C-alpha cells in the first residue's frame, strides 16, 4: 500500500494521500510536510459522516466518491469499503487526469485488501 500511495503522490498537484477508516483511524499515510496525519484523518472522518447525514435526507446515504473544491485546494475521498482513500491536492490541478490516477490507486488498494483477506 505504501508503494500505491507513493506513486499516487507523484501525480501532478497531489500534496498527499491517506487511507482511513470511517471513524478516522489511519491505515496508511503518505501526507506532505504541511499536512498533519491525525488532523487530516479526523477531518476526513467528520466530512464522511456529515456527507452521509446530508444524503440520508434525500435518499441513500453512501457515496462512492466525493470531490471538494475550495479556494486554496481540493480534497477527494473515495469509498474503498471498509476504508476511504483521501487525497489532498493543489487548487490548480487538471482534475480529470488526477481523478484517473486516484481511481486507479483506489482500485489497487481495494484489490490489495481483497488479496490480504484470502
Amino acid at each position: 500500500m505504501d508503494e500505491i500511495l507513493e506513486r499516487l503522490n507523484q501525480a501532478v498537484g497531489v500534496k498527499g494521500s491517506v487511507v482511513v477508516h470511517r471513524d478516522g483511524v489511519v491505515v496508511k499515510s503518505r501526507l506532505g510536510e504541511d499536512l498533519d496525519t491525525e488532523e487530516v484523518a479526523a477531518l476526513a472522518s467528520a466530512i464522511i459522516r456529515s456527507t452521509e447525514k446530508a444524503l440520508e435526507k434525500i435518499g441513500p446515504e453512501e457515496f462512492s466518491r466525493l470531490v471538494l473544491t475550495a479556494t486554496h485546494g481540493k480534497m477527494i475521498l473515495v469509498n474503498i469499503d471498509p476504508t476511504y482513500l483521501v487525497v489532498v491536492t493543489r487548487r490548480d490541478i487538471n482534475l480529470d487526469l488526477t481523478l484517473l490516477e486516484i481511481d486507479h490507486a483506489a482500485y489497487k488498494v481495494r484489490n490489495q485488501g481483497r488479496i490480504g483477506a484470502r
Partner: protein
Amino acid sequence: MGLFDRLKQKKEIERLEATVRGNPSPKAYLELSERYISTGDIDKAFRLVDSGLRAFPKSNDLLQRLVSLRKRRNQEEIRELSGQIASSPSAQAYARLASLYREIDEEERCLDLLREAVDKFPAADSPHQILGEMRLERFRLDHYHRDGKLAIDHLEKAIERNETNYKALLALAKLLLEIGAVGHALKRIREIQAFAPSDPAVDEVLRAAEQCPRGQVEDVDELLRRVENQGRMIFPLAPPKDPRTRALARAIDYTADVEMAQRGLEQLAALPGFVAGSLTGGNGTIALHGGGEAFGPAVTDFVETVGRHVRRMDIGNLTQAQIDGAFGQVYLSRIDPFVLAILFTGTQDTGRVWSEMQSLFDECLIGQATGPRGASNEGT
C-alpha cells in the same frame, strides 16, 4: 501585415470599441481585447479587460482573460528571475518572483518559492513578509483563526529579521487593530514612527486606533477565535478581496433574482437525469424544482458542516462539491451566501453541468461592488 489588412484591422477595432461603449457585454470586451492582443498592445488589452471586469464582476471569461494577460505581462520578468534563481539565487529574487506568481494567481508556485526561500535564506525577512500578507488576505476573507495566527507569526518573524520592515509592521499593526488588540497595534505603530515619524498611512491607522475603545481582552489568540466565531473583524479597516483574483479591489455583495433563479432551475430540469435542484441563500431556500422540501435544507446542512471541516484542512472555503454514488450525482456550487445544488440520476457530462450552473448564477445573481464591509455599523 499589408496596408489593406492594417486598415481592415483598424476599422474592426473601431467597430468593436463602439460596441463596448454603446452595448457593453462580456463578449464585446473579450472580442475587443483579442484585437488589441493581435496588435501586440497587451497593456491596452489589460486595461480594457480590467474595466470590463468592474462592469461585469461575475464574468469568469473576463476573469480568466485578465489573469492570462497578467501572465503575459509578467512573463519576461518571470523568465529573468527564474534564470537568476537558478544561477545566483538571492532572497530578493525569490521574493520578487513569488510576488509575480501571486499576482497571476499561481498561489501554489508562489508558496513553493517562499518555502524554498525560507529554507535557503533563514535570515531573510521578505519571504516571511509575503507569507504573512497571503495569510492575512485569507484571514480577511474567511476569518479563520489559523490564518490569522499564521499571518501574525510570519509578520512577526519578518520584523524580527528586519525591525524596519515597514510593510510587515504596517500589515501587522492593521491586523492587530482589526481583531481588537488595540494596545498591541499601538505598540507596532510606535515602532514604525521611530523610523518613519510622519508617514500618512501610519497616521491614518493611528487615527483609527485612537477611535477604537480599548477592550478588556488583549489576548491575541482569544481575539482571533472571537473573530472566527463572529465571522467578521472587530474593527474592520479594509474590504475583503475576492479570492479568485487580485484584480478585484472591491468586495462584491450579491442579491438573487428569485424569478430568474426559478426559471433557471426549470431550464436545468431539461438536462437528462435531473431529479431536483435548489438555490439556497442566507435565509433558506430561494428557488426549488423537484426533490421535495428536504432537498434545500440537506444542501444547507452539507455546506455548513462540510464547509467548516474543509476550512480546518487549510485549503480555504468550500466553493464546489461533487458527490457520486449509486443514487447518481449531486453537484453543488457556491457563491457566498448562495448555494446551487442539483441532483441527477446516472452520470453526467461534468463540464456541461458546471457550465450550466455557472450560467444560472450569471443570470440570477446581481453583484454590487461595495466599499469596506460594515465599517460604519459594526461595533464590538
